[in-house]
């Protein structure tokens, strides 16, 4: 399960502070900055969905002011004292903390969506490519357990390159750990909605993000198990352009519905009106 090649992805989600115009990565149209932001980083010309931070997603998904963060102090340790090509994991954690003001690749909490109480976990790709480390898994499980205990629907928004190699086997184990949490929600009839955004790969697709009661995805999000390069090396041929895009996954039966970002909140409220936590 190769870790998504995060270095090739531009993780900047905001324009330089002084720019008035944003150039759309897809259609190259120049978009007025305030329009871009108001439109949730979606290009009004070509519907390209740009990157967002976890906070930005929480802001437009939940009712204003309703978010209350859970377990915000949980952060990565460095259990393997991991050293690699880029230096030490411990140092890079510190640097990433500073750069992103994030302690982990996921923010979890409670809030309301058009008045409906929910527990939500939103991944942030800027933090180690949204990779699944021990602290990530712990936060996702604790949020699931909170949903279980309070009979509230659980929503996870994924964006990840996969496992966090720097934590070795413990990263792999987070897949089993988070899925065990989802399994308990299933048994008790607590709704679990997974939202897949660009990109979601590896250990995150092979765990909680593909087993929602309902799986939603943003348009053209790249979603897969193995990375494109690995597959191309394995089969020794080029893959079609739409391979592993959300539309492709829907055709193959793994996505319930593709939802434009600007319609996500309404869609969630609509779906949640059907998925009531079963009375126990």
């Amino acid at each position: 399960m190769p870790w998504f090649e995060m270095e090739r992805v531009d993780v900047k989600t905001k324009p330089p502070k002084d720019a008035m115009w944003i150039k759309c990565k897809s259609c190259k149209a120049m978009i007025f900055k305030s329009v871009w932001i108001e439109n949730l980083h979606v290009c009004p010309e070509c519907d390209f969905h740009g990157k967002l931070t976890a906070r930005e997603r929480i802001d437009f998904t939940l009712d204003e002011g309703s978010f209350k963060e859970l377990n915000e102090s949980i952060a990565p340790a460095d259990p393997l004292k991991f050293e690699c090509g880029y230096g030490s994991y411990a140092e890079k954690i510190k640097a990433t903390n500073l750069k992103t003001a994030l302690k982990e690749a996921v923010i979890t909490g409670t809030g309301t969506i058009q008045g409906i109480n929910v527990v939500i976990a939103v991944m942030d790709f800027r933090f180690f490519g949204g990779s699944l480390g021990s602290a990530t898994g712990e936060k996702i499980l604790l949020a699931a357990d909170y949903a279980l205990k309070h009979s509230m629907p659980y929503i996870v928004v994924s964006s990840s390159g996969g496992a966090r190699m720097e934590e070795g086997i413990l990263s792999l184990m987070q897949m089993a750990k988070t899925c065990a949490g989802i399994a308990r929600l299933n048994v008790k009839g607590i709704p679990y909605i997974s939202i897949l955004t660009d990109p979601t790969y590896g250990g995150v697709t092979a765990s909680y993000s593909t087993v929602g009661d309902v799986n939603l995805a943003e348009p053209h999000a790249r979603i897969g198990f193995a990375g494109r390069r690995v597959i191309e090396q394995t089969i020794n041929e080029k893959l079609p352009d739409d391979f592993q895009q959300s539309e492709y996954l829907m055709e193959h039966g793994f996505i319930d519905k593709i939802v434009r970002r600007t319609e996500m909140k309404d869609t969630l409220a609509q779906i949640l009106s059907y998925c009531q936590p079963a009375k126990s």
Partner: protein
Amino acid sequence: MNVLEFESHLHEMEENIEKFRIMSEKDNIDLNKQILDLEKRLKTEKEAVYSKLTPWQTVQIARHAQRPVLEDYINLIFTDFIELHGDRRFSDDRALIGGFATLGDQKLMLIGHNRGNNVTENIERNFGMALPDGYRKALRLMELAERFGLPIVTFIDTPGAYPGIHAEERGQAEAIARNLCEMAKLKVPIVCIVTGEGGSGGALGIGVGNVILMLKHSIYSVISPEGCASILWRDGAFAEQAAESMKITAQSLKKLGVVDEIVSEPLGGAHTNPVATAKSVRSAILKHLRKLNAMKADGLIENRFEKYAHLGVFTS
């Protein structure tokens, strides 16, 4: 028998002993003393090598072409294996097999990667790299086991789930994820043993259990050392270093709490004595099944959940 690089001097010593034997027979010279002496030195040297194997050397043993595969264990320690084919949806994956089997007097559902014993078999078995169909077959068999109260034993030995176009099309990720969810809920005991290479999600897809065993010289990791090196060192040649950093040996994994017990291997690795290896595997599995059989369904599920809920190291 393939000779691993770090064992080449041991192999030379073995060849010398053999030469002495042949000489002594052919020319009728008594070389017994010399031979015994050489054998003693060989053993000492072997013990020295094997007592301080590096992770990278362990990788090589774990991947050894002659290392026993599932089929060998089936022949050596299981009686009455009845293979059950197919996922009831699309195909019968040959890389991941399963069926009813008996170990001692314990009837159980046996599931495992099967990478084959020679190149022809390797290819037929796709080197133990399963498709989604394999994981779905495994789940079907686990649910069958649950229906009839049979404990589940899984043998893990795969470079990873197959990363190909059909695997993506048919939902490799979903198939593995579904197994992780369902294995968490199964009402019967689950014992998993890593016997060779425990490669990432492809290993974990049949690897959620009440007890995780690991053969002494097997490995279990989130990504292959080569893959890790090519990403984090930007050069696959750093695989040895990646193997070191990632902590992929049984000893390390036991310390991290991922593995519950290390199953011994003969000196020189499982491939030097499959019969002895299989015997150790047999008694380790039976010992744990006996304990787990005493537990009720709720207890087994709770036990499994708690095990995974506590895996991971973080600050708070």
